[in-house]
């Protein structure tokens, strides 16, 4: 089961290592992690996507809550949040294939942000599933390099995670 946790933490040194350390020493795996400051400069928000059964998630939430700099932990409910990650893909692109690649990029509503004689770089900001689809579509042309952020996620509607 894949689940998404939103964690509000005090914006101070060492918090990230406390959180990532907790995952590794209890044998829990992190699929993706993203950190950034919130509208309150003293508070950062961490989004973690991880894999585990109900027991693992519940333990994780509780153990995270025990860390002193952690202000709030919320598990986002499947289907009730919007998630995005950003990816930059450098694809091998011979002149003959360029039109084809541009078409694919257009269909997926991605963007070409850099072009050179033998390759293009595609920027895409979408949920993890769609990002994976784009990767699959571009794979046949030869992917040279991928750089990808962790997922960030936010509740749909008026629900929110705040201090």
């Amino acid at each position, binding site marked *: 089961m894949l689940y998404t946790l939103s964690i509000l*933490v*005090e914006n101070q*040194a*060492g918090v990230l*290592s*406390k959180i990532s*350390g907790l995952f590794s*020493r209890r044998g829990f795996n992190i699929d993706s992690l993203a950190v950034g400051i919130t509208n309150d400069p003293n*508070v950062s928000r961490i989004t973690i996507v991880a894999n585990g059964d109900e*027991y693992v998630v*519940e*333990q994780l939430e*509780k*153990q995270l*809550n*025990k*860390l*002193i*700099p*952690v*202000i*709030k932990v919320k598990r986002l409910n499947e289907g009730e949040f919007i998630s995005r990650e950003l990816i930059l893909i450098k694809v091998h692109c011979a002149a003959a294939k360029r039109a084809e690649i541009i078409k694919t990029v257009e269909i997926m509503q991605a963007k070409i942000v850099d072009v050179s004689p033998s390759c293009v770089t595609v920027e895409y900001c979408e949920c993890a599933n769609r990002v994976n689809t784009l990767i699959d579509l571009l794979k046949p042309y030869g992917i040279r390099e991928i750089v990808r952020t962790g997922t960030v996620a936010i509740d749909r509607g008026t629900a929110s995670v705040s*201090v």
Partner: protein
Amino acid sequence: MISGAEIMVKCLEAEGVSVVFGYPGAAICPFYDKIYDSSIKHILVREEQNAAHAASGYARCSGRPGVCVATSGPGATNLITGIATAYTDSIPMVVITGQVRSDLLGRDVFQEADITGACEPFVKHSYLVSKTEDLPRIFKEAFHIASTGRQGPVLIDIPIDIQTNSIDEFIYPDKVNIMGYKPNTKGHVVQVKRAVEAIKASKRPVIVAGGGVLSSGVKLKLQEFVDKTKIPVISTMMGIGVMPSEHELYLGMLGTYGKAVANRALHEADLVIVCGARLGDRAVAAPDQMSEKTTVIHIDIDPAEIGKNVKTEIPIVGDMRNVMNMLIENIGDFAVLNQWSDTIRLWKKDLFKEPPVFDGYVEPRTLVGHLSSMLHSKAILVADVGQNQIWCANNFRIREGRFLTTGGMGTMGYSIPAAVGAKFARPERDVIVVCGDGSFQMSLNELATIAGNNLNIKIIIMRNKRLGMVRELQDNNYGGRHSATILQGDPDFLKIADAYGIDHAEASSNEEAEEIIRGVVDSDKPFILVCNVYPDTPSI
């Protein structure tokens, strides 16, 4: 102007700290220079780990956070085992370490160690101080965090320049405000009601009491609840002392090394009320089997403990004192059916066996069983780790005193330094150490601390010339191959005692041992008794 080092001392004074245990070094020298003139007593141990154990013993007997101090690098890393021991046993402690200059951090300079990083899994919280003006807030927070909620050690790592820098004035905050730390102590009313209903509906309930009952200072409330409801009580190792051992409804310690009657009652119960215990693997070997046929009520201050090891039907997060009061208020005149308490009484009688005596040896279980009657009723017994721990846990008859041991980490060498801390917390009480010849040698250097402060601590060494518990494991599981468990080259412990100027004796029978103990129990000097124990004596 006031220096960081002076601020550190003033913070400790503001927290009412009267004694700290430590070992100096270069990076903590500014602090040592200031504590020299203060009202706080500094007890010099002989190795840093023991400063942490002493602070732990102090905390458990005084109910206030213990404080220990060490220098940077090796001083700090030596503390780790002591910190980890306190962490697993949920002991409130504030640990102060010196650190190299802030501008040199991360350059691997002399005696630099990333102690906040190294201790991360073993502390409730830690600070690496970056500004002198932060010291008062950090000390205030550290004492608050250590002593509230689920108690535990908090580490403050202080670079030497933070200690030497000065600020204009010292103001100690009277409040803390930590956004992410607001322990829930109240106990949920609806869950307590559900618990009361479940108790009333039960036919064979038992209480499993852990260290949480002792650390929340609520053992008398628990006894009141038990006397009212007649629900039998089992304790974990950390919970020993929640009930007087002779109480008719107390069944002793549960688990792998526990009492058969305790395990049997737990097995037969239809309702288990877990109070401030985490039910680790030594306590309940197959927790999933337990919850299949019993209803579990789990009361704990730490929500993460509930459901972690045992499936729980009724969770109650809260301070044991509040929850116990609520239970007593709501339980009415419920009392357990006589049939259940009679059954348990019968089991208790059936299972008692006098251990066999070997000529020329002290039988340790019998000796520990008789020990209590030779001491005052509030005596503090400190057991080490190994067979001596199990002999004490199962046989010491506790009355109004305490039983100290390390349940979670099982750290050998704990008993002597912990007894030092206990004695400073409770100078008026008997403090007795029971250790093995293995564990004694892990912290015998602290005899100097005992001698130097003339601490009235009586030490009983159970000498079987073995690492007895591992030897027993080898006999049971490894074909009796005694790999590295036979102690060779041990010194004459009596000469060691003599070298430290501590009175001593040796016993080779229970009569002899008891006579010696009776003779020294009222003296105000330390004493070491070496008991020769038959090498194959089992743990239980």
